[in-house]
């Protein structure tokens, strides 16, 4: 009966969450305001659509990366994987063109190929990491080199181009949409919403956090740790496939420079969004905010020409650090 006295107010917890939660959002809002002040077209329909649509690739991948990182993993291979899948998809479609002819079916086959390739690539990473017990960093550094190399080889050092006719058929998938919202934005939104739901509302999401926090405990709690881990990589692989499906109609080609550094951008977005690199806690909506922050930085730098373009990278670096400082502003105690 007297315990009531001793427990007392857990008053600080909500406040603690607020700042952590608000951090990335504040950073995003600040960027939007800065952008709007600098250029009146910044908030125009065209610019907003551009920024959102081009965020979609990294964004879709980053949603998958959130799961991988939450479960204590890492994937450096996503950029190369995207390039490889894009190359493969183009080859498949070009190859089938004579037999299938131009049209929606061939595009669907290409999409299917991308998803299957993503699934396989994700499975390979997951399998090596989980079943062979090799550090995720090494496995995915290895596969990063492998996919990058393979796409260069497939393209014979040059560029793989989608047949011109096919490109016209496929083009709307990036450039058009419904109700004035372009497809990449729609797909990105759907992936993000689904990701958020899976992370928060399903056992899978919870298992990811548990495994990232302490895989031993998860194992003792009857969680099939290996399976969940592999699944995070497969999920990521499939999402890389989805991102590629959006990417190919944008440029209609793939080469060894496709998707370079996407992995770092995706990981940065995840962390800016508040997910912990060590695992144990993940936030999909935070990742979306992180992706938007990163895209906006690039966009805003193009709005003005105050600084030498040589220094763009420096400004990006400073803003990334500032965005995170904003978020972690309060000194954690103990």
């Amino acid at each position, binding site marked *: 009966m007297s315990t009531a006295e001793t427990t007392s107010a857990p008053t600080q917890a909500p406040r603690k969450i607020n700042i952590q939660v608000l951090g990335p959002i504040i950073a995003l809002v600040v960027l939007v305001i800065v952008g709007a002040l600098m250029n009146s*077209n910044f908030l125009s329909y065209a610019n907003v659509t551009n920024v959102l649509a081009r965020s979609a690739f990294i964004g879709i991948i980053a949603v998958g990366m959130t799961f991988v990182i939450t479960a204590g993993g890492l994937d450096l291979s996503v950029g190369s994987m995207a390039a490889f899948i894009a190359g493969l998809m183009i080859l498949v479609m070009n190859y089938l063109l004579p037999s299938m002819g131009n049209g929606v079916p061939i595009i669907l086959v290409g999409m299917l190929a991308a998803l299957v390739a993503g699934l396989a690539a994700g499975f390979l990473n997951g399998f090596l990491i989980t079943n062979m017990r090799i550090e995720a960093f090494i496995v995915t550094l290895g596969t990063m080199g492998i996919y990058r190399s393979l796409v260069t080889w497939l393209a014979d050092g040059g560029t793989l181009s989608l047949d011109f006719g096919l*490109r016209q058929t496929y083009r709307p998938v990036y450039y058009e949409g419904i109700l004035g919202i372009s497809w990449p934005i729609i797909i990105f939104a759907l992936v993000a919403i689904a990701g958020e739901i899976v992370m928060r509302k399903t056992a899978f999401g919870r298992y990811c956090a548990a495994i990232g926090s302490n895989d031993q405990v998860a194992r003792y709690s009857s969680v099939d740790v290996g399976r969940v881990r592999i699944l995070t990589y497969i999920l990521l692989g499939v999402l890389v496939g989805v991102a590629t499906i959006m990417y190919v109609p944008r440029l209609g080609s793939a080469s060894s420079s496709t998707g370079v550094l996407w992995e770092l951008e995706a990981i940065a977005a995840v962390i800016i969004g508040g997910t912990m690199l060590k695992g144990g806690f993940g936030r999909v909506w935070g990742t979306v905010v992180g992706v938007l922050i990163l895209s906006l930085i690039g966009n805003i730098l193009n709005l003005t020409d105050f600084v030498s*373009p040589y220094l763009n990278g420096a400004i990006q670096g400073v803003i990334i650090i500032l965005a995170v400082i904003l978020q972690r502003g309060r000194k954690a105690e103990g």
Partner: protein
Amino acid sequence: QDTTVIGVSIPAATHGWAGGMNFHAQEAVDRLEEVYPELDFVLATAGDPSEQVSDIEDMVATRGISALVVLPFESEPLTGPVANVANQGVWVTVVDRGLSQEGIEDLYVAGDNTGFGQVSGEYMAENLDEGAQIVALRGIPTTIDNERVAGFEQAIEGSGIEVLEMEHGNWNRDDSFTVMQDFLSKYPQIDAVWASDDDMAVGVLAAIEAAGREDIQFVLGGAGMKEMIQRTMEGDEMIPANVTYPPAMIATAIELTAVGMVSSAPVSGQFTIGSVLVTEENAEDYYYPDSPF
């Protein structure tokens, strides 16, 4: 608003030649903004084709450009987006790498990569005996590199020159240094090296010098880096020649476009900037001491 905005989109300075091109672009922009107050420039550098497309989209959406000068990172991926821009009535100047579809651009200031390879190959064929053995360093695996190599191979065909091996030096000094060191370990006799780019030539020369090998008669670089041109000019036997591929072509393109915008008679058509063989005799004409490249 009576200012006209010209967008300039180029690849970032990831290797020497691109660095020189960046420098010339920046320099041209600064100079022209001074000369023509009614012109405003946006210069964006991109790390990959996708980023370059984004830059171009931004220029159209937020800066309302009237003209675009673009040096495509790669031809294929930029063809569609640049065509979009052209369709919106923006003047388009394409530099160096052509788009994969003809007739999009209003002005094309072209470099000639196949020609670059050919001139290099011809020099080799002329200056080496039959049966001579050479090694070659290639650039970053790209279409440009493929075209250069194809031109080169075509030119030495039938000359009896044997290409021992080609390996990617990625237009990078350090990488070519490493590759050349290993070539030297592997092949006891090398008569000449086609470095295909002056940055790579720097690495190659350092490796040869360090190994103290006497068998190599010369190293043929390319693109006309000022230090290399100077050494050719001074009669350095290791660097008897160079093949131009001037990074300043971007400045030409920007200038032509700017003039087109301010005057009533736009300059359109195609200007091909061919690759020229530079030797001790004509080196002085290609020596730009102020350029960073």
